[in-house]
């Protein structure tokens, strides 16, 4: 259970990206976060694992406060929160396998990991995850030699290496074509339904939301303007979320 309470974020320049955002995510839910560009979706997701420091408010995870955690505790919390990015954020010059193994960095002994030594069990686990996302044959290649869709699979495998309880996915399919988008979303769905991992996923396309999400949160200028089932988004709600001039396509 993840609880967000009165979360606000004001950037150094004075932009208020989140205003008093509150909502709960029950364990095992697939929650979509939608909203216009600049509405604060990325900021919200990054506040949850504190890649961005929230200005005020609280985030509770299974009763433990993420916002009050010390750096040491934060590392322990982060290792159970996987993250998947729009631009994949792989380390280009490293091998695919190394990128996947990086998901274990929060678990392994730092001293050994600095020498690039990982336990045998982790190596096997990494190969198994690559197998699961269907690119086991690419494990020895450099990450930048892969296509976009393949890179995003590596990103998912890396998140899976963390044995996550939650996966935060920030527009995971925005830079992929529709066919690839569905295959990546299916992986996330599979992880959510099979492994019971909670997924918070920001999305641009409503058809993806209808197809995959259990519930939707909509942001507009940093405020929650809608919270409910995907099927509840009617034309009026749509205009609230995306603005008066927005036209519904498809």
């Amino acid at each position, binding site marked *: 259970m993840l609880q967000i309470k009165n979360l606000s974020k004001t950037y150094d320049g004075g932009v208020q990206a989140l205003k008093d955002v509150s909502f709960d995510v029950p364990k095992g839910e697939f929650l979509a976060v939608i909203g216009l560009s600049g509405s604060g979706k990325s900021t919200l997701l990054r506040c949850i694992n504190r890649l961005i420091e929230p200005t005020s408010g609280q985030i509770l995870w299974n009763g433990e406060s993420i916002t009050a955690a010390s750096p040491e505790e934060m590392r322990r919390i982060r290792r159970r929160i996987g993250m998947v990015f729009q631009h994949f954020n792989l*380390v280009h010059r490293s091998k695919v396998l190394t990128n996947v193994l990086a998901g274990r960095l929060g678990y392994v002994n730092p001293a050994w990991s600095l020498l690039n030594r990982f336990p045998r069990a982790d190596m096997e686990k990494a190969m198994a995850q690559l197998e699961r996302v269907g690119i086991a044959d690419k494990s020895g290649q450099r990450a930048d030699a892969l296509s976009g869709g393949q890179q995003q699979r590596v*990103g998912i495998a890396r998140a899976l290496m963390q044995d996550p309880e939650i996966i935060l996915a920030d527009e995971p399919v925005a830079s992929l074509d529709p066919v690839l988008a569905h295959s990546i979303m299916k992986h996330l769905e599979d992880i959510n339904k099979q492994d019971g991992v909670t997924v918070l996923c920001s999305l641009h396309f409503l058809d993806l939301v209808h197809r995959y999400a259990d519930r939707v949160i909509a942001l507009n200028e940093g405020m929650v303007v809608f919270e409910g089932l995907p099927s509840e988004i009617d034309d009026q709600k749509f205009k609230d979320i995306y603005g008066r001039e927005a036209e519904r396509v498809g």
Partner: protein
Amino acid sequence: MKKTKASPWKSIQLGLAILVVMVTYAYGFEITNIDLGELQSERRQESLTRVLRTLAHPDILEYEQSTVIFNAPIYMPCPADGSSPDIPEPDTTQPYVVVTPACVEPGGTVLVEGFGFAPFVGGPLRFVPGSDPTNSVSLGRATLETDASGHFSVEMVLPDDRDSPDVQFIRATARENVGAPYFSRTAHETWDKIIETVFMALLATTVGTILAFPISFIAARNLMKPVRAPLASIALSLLGWPVGIWLGYQLVHWVGLQGAPFARNLVFAAGSVILVPVFLTFALRWALPQVELQVPSRELRLARLGVVILSLMVLFFGLFELAGLMSLLGARIIDSERVYSFMGTLLYQCGEILRLITPLLGALAGGGWVSSLFGRFGQRMAERLAAGLMKSINIVLAAAAGATVFVLIGLLVEWLYQLGRPELTLYWPAASGAGLGMIIALIARPKDSLPSGMVIYYVTRTILNALRSVEALVMAIVFVISVGIGPFAGILALGLHTIVSLGKLYSEQVESIMDGPLEAIQATGANRLQTIVYAVIPQIIPPFISYTMYRWDINVRMSTIIGFVGGGGIGFLLLQNINLLNYRAASTQMLAIAVVVAMMDYVSSVLRERTV
């Protein structure tokens, strides 16, 4: 775009600007003594021509020479009775010289002609005073050069103060190259020095690169910005450094003393070099398990800490033994006096260097460790204790840390300037440091984390920029004074300059890496060091390699001239030869420099292309 209106004020400004520029340049000409008249004067041009011609004949190859000497008689002045002097007929089957006329007034001119010499040979043509033809004193600057038929003819002016009633001589010396050419002594010397030069550059680049690497991370804004810590943690880690350095040094020094007797025994030293890594592998495998899912018990943690400390001491013991082993083996190889004995020198020197730096490594490791230990303790305190209590603790700790830092700076000043006034270098810094610490502790909220990373960043950047503005040549002068003339001073100067300039270049590369991977690795729960190794280093390797090559290039150039101030390498030889007006040798050295620099330039550009 707005059109600017023409106004008298604008024109006056322009006029003033032109005036300022002209005055500046005029002054520049004046103080730099630009004198075109001097450049055109005959005397200057003559010596310039001479120097250029000598420079065009580098002293590289030499031949064995066979010398033919002929002493032709001459009377100066002519006999008083007006008779013509009696000159014996020369043996025309051998090379011979005819002087016409056979007698001349002092200071007169004679025509000297040679016949039957080897073709295209040359040598000095001299007046030999006194009537002994073997006299080694000879006067004049004329030279002879034979043509294809072995003939020469030279008009020669005789000295006007060497009159004698007896016969005197004109000595023609023809030197002929025989056999294959061989390298001259200058060429050998130049070769030795150019090798020294290249290796100076190599060592300076290596040392500089190794040290610039870690520095570049603490001089990178994007890595240091997120580094924040509560005041208690900052103060405690500042205090931890001197304590840790002292402890580490003492401990490693003690280990070194214990190990010294063994390090002098070849068998024992070799044995420990093999056994130490084995021990370390097992001990560290136990003490640092690869994964740990549960938080370990306190006893287990203490036991592990003990084993880690023991392992570190064993490691330093091993380093001392390794140093001893290298020195011993090196000395053996040197004694064997084989072709490869220079390898012995290298080994020996490396051993000595290792023995010297091991305690420093210990001090550094101790400082870093104790400081991070203290820092973590401070962090815990700030997390757990109440705000009011924390405030008082902060005041005490910050005052202590401020005083320590300022006193250390004061001690440095005292050491540099020997003021001998403790109130200036001890009490006053202690008081002001403590005061400053207290003020910060009073202003800051007790549990807030302060941007310690940015402070480190600014301090590092300032030091780098200050040192970078000092030319390597100037640094070399300082090092020549502190470690004496020779290549070591040059290496230190070039190395230091390499550290600061690469530190800056590298850190700019670190600042321009992509944020995405950094963010992704952080999100996995990696700590700061892991983030650097997994997200930063892979991104910066190509630019680092190319900057290192570039620096290696610069270092080769610099090391050729660092000898001008006594820093070793070929520059010293070059300067010496220029000062002795020995331009042919100087020319050889300049040629060598040009060849080496061009070669390094080529090699490094090829390597850069390959790696990037």
